[in-house]
């Protein structure tokens, strides 16, 4: 279970405190999904980064499976992120020098007891329809294909939490639809908690639980 309780985040600026998030709370169980929407600068990505333990909150707690990652040491936190969280960003952030398969395997290289990751990576690439392109480089893929690789990479270690930041933002409608289909298919099959932040109404409409960030507060739509 992902439990977010009274989460706040503000930054100190020369002009004083700049509040980004205020008293954000919600809970999600395995297999559940949440879509967070909001205008630019509303704090969507900040919330996503806090959920992904990339940025600590100013106040409040985040627990995943009963563990508060912000209580962990730096190495433990890295290991936590590695095993518990999967990321998909608007930019695919694939390593251009690595093949499709290698890109999917990158998280496994620093994971302990990850099992047969090669098989798992091939299965995921099979599921996202790239089983014929394992040795290809990112430069040889379309935008949608690259994002599908990024999705496979995010799920390769079976994370509890899948965080997506505008996963279809750089894609045309057809590609965006295909990626969205895959996203839902995979998170359901993997029984992960899916949190997506997006501007896309098309994508958000696929979610039962849609919320909007307004003035740092999370409100149901």
């Amino acid at each position: 279970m992902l439990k977010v309780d009274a989460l706040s985040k503000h930054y100190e600026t020369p002009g004083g405190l700049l509040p980004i998030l205020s008293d954000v709370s919600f809970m999600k169980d395995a297999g559940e999904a949440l879509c967070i929407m909001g205008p630019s600068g509303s704090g969507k990505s900040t919330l996503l980064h806090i959920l992904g333990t990339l940025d600590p909150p100013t106040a409040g707690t985040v627990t995943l499976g009963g563990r508060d990652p912000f209580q962990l040491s730096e190495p433990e936190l890295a290991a936590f992120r590695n095993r518990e969280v999967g990321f998909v960003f608007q930019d695919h952030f694939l390593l251009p020098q690595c093949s499709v398969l290698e890109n999917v395997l990158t998280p496994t290289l620093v994971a302990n007891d990850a099992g047969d990751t090669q098989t798992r990576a091939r299965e995921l690439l099979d599921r996202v329809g790239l089983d014929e392109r394992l040795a290809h480089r990112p430069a040889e893929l379309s935008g949608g294909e690259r994002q599908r690789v990024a999705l496979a990479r995010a799920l390769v270690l079976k994370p509890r939490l899948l965080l997506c930041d505008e996963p279809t933002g750089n894609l045309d409608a057809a590609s965006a639809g295909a990626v969205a289909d895959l996203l839902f298919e995979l998170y359901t099959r993997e029984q992960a908690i899916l949190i997506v932040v997006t501007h896309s109404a098309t994508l958000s409409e696929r979610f039962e639980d849609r919320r909007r960030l307004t003035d740092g507060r999370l409100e149901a739509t």
Partner: protein
Amino acid sequence: MRAQTLLVRSLLHYWRSNVAVVLGVAAAAAVLGGSLVVGDSVRGSLAATALERLGRTTHTVESTGFFRADLAAELASLPSFSEGFDAACPIVAVRGVATHATSQRRAGDVQVYGVDERFWNFHDRPVPELGRRDALLSEALAAELGAETDEAVLVRFDAASEIPGSSLFGRRDEAARALRVTVTGVLSPGDLGEFLLRPRAGRVRAVFVPLRTLERALGLEDRANVLLVSAKTREASVDALETALGEAIALEDLGVRVRGVPQAGAVQLDTTSALVDGSLQKAATTAAKNLGLRVGEVFVYLANTIRVGEREVPYSLVAALDPASLEAVAGVEVTSADGEPPPIVLNEWVAMDLGAVPGSRVTLEYFLWHEDGRMETGSTPFSLAAVTPLEGRAADPDLVPEYPGITESLRLADWDPPFPVDLDRIRQKDEDYWDDHRATPKAFVPLAVGQRLWGHRLGGLTGMRLVPETAADLGETRGLFAAALLAELGRRGAPPGFAVVPVRQAALAAARGSIDFGEYFAYFSFFLVVAALLLAGLFFRLGLEGRLRELGLLGALGYPSSRVRRLFLAEGALLSGLGGLIGAFAAAGYAALVLWGLRSLWAEGLGTRDLDLHLGVASPLLGAVGAGLAALLSVVWTLRSVQRLPPRMLLAGTLEPWVKPTPARRRRKLLPAGLTLVALLLVAASGAGAVPQTAGFFGAGGLLLAAALLYAGRLVAGRPSAAAAVTSVLGLGLRGVSFRPGRSVLCIALVASATFVIVAVGSFRREGADIEARDGESGGYRLQAWSVAPLHHDLTSAEGRAALALEGVALEGIDVGRFRARVGEDASCLNLYQPRVPTVIAASPSFIEERRFSFAASLAESPEEHDNPWRLLEREVDSEGAIPVIVDASALTYVLHQSLGDVMSLGETGVRVRFVGTLAPGLLQGELITSERHFLQAFPGEAGYRFFLFDVDAERAPALSQDLESHLSDFGFDVTETAERLRDLHRVENTYIATFQALGALGLLLGTVGLAAVLMRNALEQRGALALLRAVGYRRAHMTRMVLAENVVLVGLGFLAGAVPALVAIAPVLLERRGAVPLALLASLLVAIVVTGALVSWLAVSYIRRLPLVESLHAVSE
């Protein structure tokens, strides 16, 4: 907004990358221009040193003998002299050795000068007060001897007697003269302490003693052998000085004596050498004929015995006369019949003593002195043609020239000749004859017979008689003849035995023609320059790659590609120009740094610390233009490669699209293999001697380096197969080299270039030598020796050892090579000046047949010459009048700047030599080697042997060295180990190598900078992906491992791509020198590269750590 505005804005906006480009070009320009400035500085410094050593001397008048010191004043008083010259000063200059009287410390190759107040006045210096036995030392000599003021020093110097040691009456056992002096001061170079007439590198060991003292030590009075001359203008010519000299010179200065012999009614011509050479004979004959004088020719020799039957007369002088003179002495015509012994005429005294009558068989026994030092007794039967009364022309003691130790003796028993005499054979009647008739010849033979039996290469006569046809005043005739003879001798250039040398001009030429450091530094800085240009190109490329979107945008806005190119080219040109300009100024700094290194770190090898910066405009400018143009070319190339990308990729800021392999690309894959093949063929050809080693090395090295870089490029751009996916963080790091293959290859190229230079050049280092190997650097000789006074006797023969008092020295079983030597300038790499008249040594026939040392190349044609190239020395003088010589290959190329087959004139000696063979670098680097036969023809005045090599085992060498030095100390015999000489030579080579390795290390430094820049640029461009990795759990240790892995691959490939081609290219050299792979060098280089790589990795990891994680993700995703 105008295009210029856009240009300025761009330059300012991208100032960071622009500054990097400018610095890269500046580095290249500084290195290139600085190298040329180093060359200018070395030449300038050498010239300055040589001129300082000459003082005010611009010309010298040098003589093989001694002339009147007053000649200087007489010359200076002539109007023909005053027109172009303003002063002349006599000195005595000889070479010698010096020994500290107390410590016995010894210094060889010492310049011994006899000077008086005229010398100091000539140079406008205060005249030091020197007592009769006082001496001033140069700083170098004082330091080497450890001599302080008021301490005694023994100076030994050669004083060849005027009568050639190679003739019967010459002194062969005459040791070097010795002079014990007290040091009264030490002269700095600025105070003429290093006064030197022939430029040469290294400190000068000189001792200045009063002229009168040195003259006395030489047995002379008011004599000099060098005139220093100072010209008023640079235009003053050698011809003008020769003309003036011709006017001032007297026959006495030429060693020619002309005197009246009243009892013979003739004028007598003879010489201080007791021999009349061909040119003097010819001039005297012409002068005599012009004056209507009849010429009589005389050759006098000593017969040990005149025998008829059992009766004999000991030690008699025999005169060989021209037919007319012989007939006049005999009173009858003297002819020889075919098949009969040659005729002889005896005076009454000896005929009576022997009981000889006309027709008697008379046998003459005499000593014959062979050139190789052997003396034997010859015997020739004669037929007595006539007996002449001991009166008139037959009673003429003046026919015999002055033989020191003989003619001046009051008694026969007092003779002190340079050959063995048995005084027991001398009878009272012989003493009586000597009392009454002195050296009057007792026998007369035809001139042709005498010359055939006893003739000497230096002259076929011992005197000439000039007889007036009619009665004339002998004094007047003598004067007329002397004047006519002088006029005849001065007809062509300097008088015989004299040379006018434009020493100032020669010194400047020697400095200009010295080892061209500018050229060498430019050569060996080549890789450094390339590294700097690669770096500049890399930075320009990095800057351009960061502006891909700008390029795409300009295209999208309708800018024609040519316009875009011009815009960016203008930027590149401005940056290159600015870099070149900065580099031109920095060139002085670079040159100053190198010169500092040459003066301090590498001074031991170069033998000089007198190197100052000589900065002109041309060299830095040349460096700036060269580097600027090269950088611009690099910009053009970079721009072209980037502009080839389609606009959509440019707009997307994407590089290096996947390109489907085409047949052309596939063919290109064969290129490295092709290059490797050609390179290996070149190596093989070089090893077999079909291609010169240098060409082979550079050709093969360049091709292999290119091939290695192509292979490396293919490796880093390689596509992983699905099956070979990375399984570790290290593997992922390794994959990093493929991120921007072009950049990676550039980094590899930077490291490879530097490695290539360091390894290739380092492999040429010489450490030690195989002294035992007869075909090695030492020729199998363990000891070498130079003797100040020549040795005429054979060290290896019992009689030679007896003559030299070496009976106690264990020379049995030791192979001794002895060489005649005409000591000139050092032709080895120890001399930074270009020698004009190098030292020439003569190889004996036995040495030639021993086939020692190895040949680098030769002009051998016949099977015999191919079999033993030393036999090339037996070739005849060629059509250009050049004698064949063999020389060390390094000396020929780098010091003499000549090639195999070239002809070189040896300055004022008039001797021409042709280089017929080159030796592999080794012991004989400083000399030209010819055969004894050619040597004696070329330098007839050089007698005896001065250079020796000893093939002795290690155990006996120290004792032999000590014994020889102690027994032959009077000759100034200086023995050194050949290993020591080779170490000196190696030190010079190793110094050059060290300097060039230092340049390679600078290249490595540039490579490091490039590598760091590439890694950081890669990190910047991949910051999102790197942030994502951190987001998915990669920690700092993982990042470090990744960067390290990438780095290891880049520097490792660079190391291999540089080291392997270098080792393959130099394989022929290593094999020839029996060298081993320089493992220590490779190991230390590897350590340096590892350290470098670690430093770069640390920089890159620190940079990556500083990249903000969240912002890196945020900046792109939101």
